[in-house]
């Protein structure tokens, strides 16, 4: 109960601190801003460990070793090495990750992959101290992630977006809505064709496209207003209901 009251007051203070920026920049706002960055960064570390490294690497390694599936276990070394290579770009995280691995071994349970991970991190960290230019190894990890992304995106874009959307545009022009959609899509595409000057027929079609684009942007603005006001309503409700019980 006390913890809840204190938590509410802390949350209210931070909310007012951020909102105070609307009047002018001030120390309370700056403090709240730095607190936000610090806690978010800490959050990233916890999540990286608890929901990625531990379940997908450590737990899986241990499960495979327990089932005497040594190939499947040790092959996990490859993504671990790629991950450590990636961190050569931000080398302060390497000793931190090594320390975390050692903490796990001491306080949680022993796992061979944790030992290997700690050793890899230390080796990479020492390498970056000896030769700071060695961060080029992170290119291999980046190349792997970029290759996966490019390969997935190419097929998904065609199958998951282009084909269904084009197919839906080409409906029989038997009612106003189908005609509007067809004309809208075609003229919008023509507007974004900049290889030729927008004159003559192309110019006329582009101008129709602008009409559709402006309607889309206006609608987008209308919804954005609703979105931003909703966030403000959420904060005011917290202040007037949870903090000061004005709303009952």
């Amino acid at each position, binding site marked *: 109960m006390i913890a809840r009251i204190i938590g509410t007051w802390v949350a209210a203070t931070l909310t007012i601190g951020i909102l105070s920026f609307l009047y002018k920049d001030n120390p309370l706002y700056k403090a709240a801003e730095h607190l936000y960055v610090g806690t978010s960064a800490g959050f990233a570390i916890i999540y990286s460990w608890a929901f*990625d490294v531990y379940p997908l690497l450590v737990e899986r390694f241990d499960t495979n070793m327990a089932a005497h599936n040594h190939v499947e276990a040790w092959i996990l070394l490859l993504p671990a090495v790629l991950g450590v290579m990636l961190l050569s770009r931000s080398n302060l995280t390497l000793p931190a990750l090594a320390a975390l691995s050692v903490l796990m071994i001491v306080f949680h349970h022993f796992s061979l992959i944790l030992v290997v991970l700690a050793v890899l991190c230390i080796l990479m960290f020492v390498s970056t101290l000896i030769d700071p230019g060695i961060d080029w190894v992170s290119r291999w990890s980046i190349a792997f992630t970029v290759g996966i992304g490019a390969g997935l995106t190419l097929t*998904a874009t065609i199958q998951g977006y282009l084909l269904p959307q084009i197919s839906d545009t080409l409906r029989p022009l038997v009612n106003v809505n189908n005609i509007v959609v067809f004309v809208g899509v075609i003229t919008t595409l023509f507007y974004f064709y900049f290889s030729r000057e927008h004159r003559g027929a192309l110019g006329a079609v582009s101008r129709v496209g602008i009409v559709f684009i402006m309607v889309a942007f206006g609608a987008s603005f209308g919804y954005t207003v609703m979105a931003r006001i909703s966030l403000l*309503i959420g904060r005011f409700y917290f202040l007037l209901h949870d903090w000061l019980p004005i709303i009952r």
Partner: protein
Amino acid sequence: MKLWELLASVDRRILYLLLSLAVALPLILKPKITVRVSDPVRSAFETVDQLPAGSVVMISIDFDPSSAPEVNPMLVALLRHAFRKDLKVMVMGHLALGLPLAEIALNQVAPEMGKVYGKDYVNLGYRPGYTALMVGIGRELRDYFNTDYKGVPIDSFEFMRRVHTYRDVGLLVSLAHGAVADAWIQFAGGRYNQPIIVGCTGVNAPNLYQYLHSGQIKGLIGGLQGASEYETLIQKPGSATLGMPAQSAAHGLIILLLIIGNVGYLLSRRKAKK
């Protein structure tokens, strides 16, 4: 034209105060409003409503506290609806900061509806991987989620034993505040024909209408208005419905300011031409 010159030089902090009053007063006074339900939200509701009891609904938490006031009411309303229909709920997510919000919502709604963790719902937690995860789940869920968010093997939950791929999931609900919904539609929907409904922020809703039009999603709940419509359909008004009078007042204020600003602009332009 001195009045318009005066209005043009209004300190922005006066505008901020006006907005604050426009939002705060309706929250305090709670005027009664009627929520009209739109077709996209009705379609989303009916898609959930038509699922047979025992079907698995996968809810992807792709939002975080920055959009929680809009999307969280949708999550709560959807959970209430799903539990009322005796559907099995499987929660996971792509945004690390958003999963605790799901945990809070589940702990609020499940006891109300008499639902038990592990028997009626599970929280699988967060995994990085984004599109890789979306494609990978199409092969085997356990490649990414072998355990729930607490490290308990998912095969220890009875209804999860039969869930391996999208074929075993009756409906995917993406509650998103960015491009994640688009990714679900293109990867899970495009590649595996997974039925999808989307709940999203007002910023993303316009971009998702094209998917609704093409039938790639079965329903769309857009912004706080969409959330209040869904609450109306399940006959359990919540924070979204409570916020709509304030939303109305704020919209009215902004439209009024747009009109005043532009009238002043046109009059000063006419004066300049003279």
